[in-house]
């Protein structure tokens, strides 16, 4: 998975063509840590079809809020730089993320 920061986000997500998935997490978010291995597994599964990225919001709070992310975990799916779908909080499960991706492929 590609590790983003506030400097690379625009280029890798907003200016990117095709599908990009961003896993928003933070240092103090335990549910995020529990979910991360599942997202990494999905990243392998969909390699070449969807670009999987992660962003630590602890160091990019304003950026996260600009994307309307104010609660973690949050998994957002973008197409050509526009948000098309998301799974947040209790809905952020491996199954839901997978079906969100399957729906657009």
């Amino acid at each position, binding site marked *: 998975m590609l590790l983003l920061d506030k400097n690379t986000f625009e280029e890798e997500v907003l200016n990117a063509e095709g599908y990009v998935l961003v896993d928003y997490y933070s240092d103090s978010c335990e549910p995020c840590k529990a979910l991360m291995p599942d997202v990494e597994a999905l990243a392998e599964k969909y390699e070449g079809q969807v670009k999987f990225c992660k962003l630590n919001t602890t160091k990019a*709070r304003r950026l996260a809020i600009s994307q*309307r992310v*104010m*609660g973690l975990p949050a998994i957002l799916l973008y197409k050509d730089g526009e948000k098309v779908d998301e799974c947040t*909080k209790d809905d952020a499960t491996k199954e839901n993320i997978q079906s969100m991706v399957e729906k657009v492929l």
Partner: protein
Amino acid sequence: MSKVYDVAIIGAGPAGLSSGLYAARSKMDVIILEKAGTGGQIATTDEVANYPGAQAEATGPSLVARMVEQCKEFGAEIAQKEVQSVNFENEMKELSLADGTVLKAKTVIIATGAHPRKLGVPGEEKLTGKGISYCATCDADFFTDMEVYCIGGGDTAVEEAIYLTKFASKVTVVHRRDELRAAKSIQDKAFANDKIDFIWNAVVKEVNGDGIVEQLVLENKNTGEEQVIDAPEDFGTFGIFVFIGYIPNTELFTDKLVLENGYIPTDADMKTNIPGVFAAGDVRVKSLRQVVTATADGAIAAVQAEHYISNKF
């Protein structure tokens, strides 16, 4: 023939981990099944001040990490697997997992815990993760220098309000009664904190906003009067943290066990109405739901499971 476990534990919070530790230590074949991350609710708690032996720096995650390590050292298996249904009708208990396998065990310890109750008001679902939160450690830092409303008046609500003052510019506790239910020591801390304000006798009526929380509407329980709180202009939003109690995670056990208001009643030995099935922790009918009572339950359940097996098998 597929493997038969001595003890299958559902849930890896403090109750489940404690049962796992005790059961594995007495050389039983143990598996702990957890659908999400280990630790349960305590994993998202910042400060654990009242667990004997836990020092000031003890956090939920650090405590859980030590419990998990201890559990594994004694040989308990912890699997990230979701239980989808249970069959307690035969002597050999069966758990059907989300991956399609069926796990067999001589005894089952239910330690599924509880989850936060929601407000049940218009706007809540749409704005969860967009300013409405049930997890302060997950989301507090988004609200650095912003205003935050904390709904509830129990221990959790007031403790989390105090925690949120480390981030927010101001925290307002909204409570349905005219006095807090939280322990006196916690109340004293809150009343002494300059950043904490209170709105009494009020409940949330709705939450509004276009993609992000912009307005909170409260109703005074005594007068019926509405109070509309709009987001200040500088940030255009504020936080709403909800801590109004818990709902037991017992959906799996409807019609399989006797339940009382959703919770599982047991005797002092953690026995449910089904022989070989035990319950431990927050999921039980009990008067105090804390880590210390959860781990105690877990230990008792594991020892009773061992007795049951040596008598029966």
